[in-house]
């Protein structure tokens, strides 16, 4: 009896400092953020309470509206692109091909590089190299920088985000594919399942848990996209690529509307929680157990 109590106390002693740190650096700032969202705090000096003004402004501010539209558009398109390509890659890398280990390592490299570094490299490619290629093939859209066009810059961002995220997703899919037991395929063979049918009815249902993880990770990553924007466009041209996180940072820290962007952050937090919960509950219904 006494022994059990002792170990309990030790666990408590381990847990309490961590809990204290968590509360101190996560919960308290979160609560303070919520408090600031009811003020006109600039980040320094005095501030006044403004009630719900910040929240009302959020819904009438075209800059905020555009940033939500852009971010959601980016998240949806990039998630689809990333998952399709990485699933195809994973199927290829899981089959019996030569140099599989090398290829797997090679495809993982983008994930190791820092997002800022990747952003700057792609910025150079989009500004100087791609237009040259565009001129050579005589394509008018490609002969100017994608990043300078208000209607196309978001595609450039999608490309970079997808390029970097495909690495991690592919690895997750490969590990998923390896959990599919060989005898399932053998049984399928007997029933005449080949090619697309084999994938659709055998492989895919069995890797749905991995699909769920990838979807949730992708959507969350892309909704919070920041580094790529910072490196490539800084929200431009014409504020067409301002993601929500970038806007919160840019306008809240540099722009000095700390209170207003705190309100934006609170709303964004609720949106992300809602989306994640919805995603989890939808996908978990579809999971198959062997």
């Amino acid at each position, binding site marked *: 009896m006494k022994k059990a109590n002792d170990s309990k106390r030790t666990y408590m002693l381990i847990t309490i400092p961590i809990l204290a740190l968590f509360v101190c650096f996560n919960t308290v700032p979160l609560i303070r953020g919520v408090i600031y969202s009811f003020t006109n705090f600039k980040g320094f000096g005095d501030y006044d309470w403004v009630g719900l003004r910040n929240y009302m402004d959020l819904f009438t501010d075209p800059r905020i509206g555009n940033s939500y539209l852009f971010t959601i558009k980016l998240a949806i398109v990039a998630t689809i692109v990333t998952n399709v390509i990485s699933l195809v890659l994973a199927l290829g890398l899981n089959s019996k091909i030569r140099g599989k280990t090398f290829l797997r390592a090679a495809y993982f490299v983008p994930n190791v590089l820092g997002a800022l570094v990747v952003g700057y490299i792609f910025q150079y490619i989009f*500004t100087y190299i791609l237009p040259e290629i565009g001129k050579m093939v005589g394509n008018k859209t490609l002969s100017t920088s994608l990043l300078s066009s208000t209607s196309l810059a978001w595609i450039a961002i999608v490309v970079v985000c997808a390029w970097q995220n495909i690495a991690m997703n592919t690895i997750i899919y490969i590990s998923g594919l390896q959990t599919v037991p060989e005898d399932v395929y053998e049984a399928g063979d007997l029933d005449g399942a080949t090619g697309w049918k084999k994938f659709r009815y055998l492989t895919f249902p069995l890797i749905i848990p991995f699909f769920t993880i990838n979807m949730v990770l992708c959507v969350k990553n892309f909704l919070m996209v920041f580094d790529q924007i910072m490196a490539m466009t*800084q929200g431009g041209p014409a504020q067409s690529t301002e993601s929500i996180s970038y806007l919160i940072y*840019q306008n809240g820290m540099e722009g000095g509307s700390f209170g207003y962007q705190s309100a934006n952050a609170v709303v964004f937090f609720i949106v992300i929680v809602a989306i994640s919960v919805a995603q989890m509950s939808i996908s978990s219904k579809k999971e198959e157990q062997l």
Partner: protein
Amino acid sequence: MRRENAISAALAVAMLTAVILPGCGSEGDSGVTEIEILQYKPEAAAYFDRVEDEFNESHDDIHLTISSPNDASTIMRTRFIREDYPDIIGIGGDINYSYYVDAGILADVSDYEGISDINPSYVDILESLEIVPTEGTYGVPYAANAAGVLYNREMFEEHGWEIPETWDELIQLCEDIKSEGILPFYFGFRDTWTCLAPWNALAVGLAPSDTCQNVNAGETTFSKEYRETAQKCLELLDYGPDDPFAYGYNDACTAFANGESAMYPIGSYAVPQIKQVNPDMNIDSFVMPGNNDASENTLNSGVDLMFAVTEACEDKDAALEVISFLLEDDNIQAYIDDQNAIPCKAGEFELASELDGMASFIEAGNMTDYQDHYYPSEMAADALIQTFLINGDVDTFLEDFDTRWQRYNRDIIREVQQYNEEHGTAE
């Protein structure tokens, strides 16, 4: 067992306190006063390191630390949130200064005798930046910059081009340059802030210098005052590269340094960057001629660096002694050589040759502060201007500028109008 638990508990508490209470610095042991400067120009870090060493060698009673981090404005604000104030801050004369004065962060230094050595027009510029007139002087102007047009002197001499003094001459010059197959201007409009350089340079000549204050007082609108500036700014685009929004500030500096264009409308602060690419380049600058009446043109010049003592500084005399040291003629000359800047101190200083074309304006004191120093940073006026230059729609832009101004400035506008009601509109 108990003992060990007690030890681990004590350890945990110690770790927590170490994390929660970040070192409260020890002060004034041994009678030496610590003075810390946080200044926002990382490009001048080498100069400030040297000054710091020289100061510490010659002073036993004061120990000076100057930090010049990247993105100092954000660092400054984060420290202000924590109420951890440096003794002296080095900032630009822009809206941030207005906010800091308004927030009561800065100390009144009007008793400081060094102020009398400063060129009064720069002291006035700081005065007019205050949101509502505030008694006292809150900053010591150190260096100014000027924005206009940089040009490739060799190229101009080779082709016999003359410096334009009116708007029509400028357009004619651009046509001449173009007809010789040379690009007149380079732009780096992907970095939104560079859109402000030609904008400011045109606006000082075309709009009244107190436009922003008048709008705040409800007496005029930007749609009225900025129409010509907007149109002329747009006109300049015809003489730039095909896709000016593809290039950033660095790209534009590099291209201009490599002789890809004859001119580059940007501030004098770009010269060190350009010279890094091409150290032998012969650059000069001229005032952006927005008007067709040459006498109405004025040089776009503002306080680029000023020092302000914070209210929280414990030994203000020591802080002022540091500022006096920085203001010694040798140090100022070294700074303006290093940064291609204009001194705010009155006296005989040798200006960099890159400022030759502007010297007559500087000597005559014909200078007007940047309009964007009054724009609230949360409004992102630079991005608005970039949007406008892409769309080319003057009416929508001006309307948008007016609406956003009212929205982002409402607290200031309320303060100004309240002040005017209480004091009666001055003048």
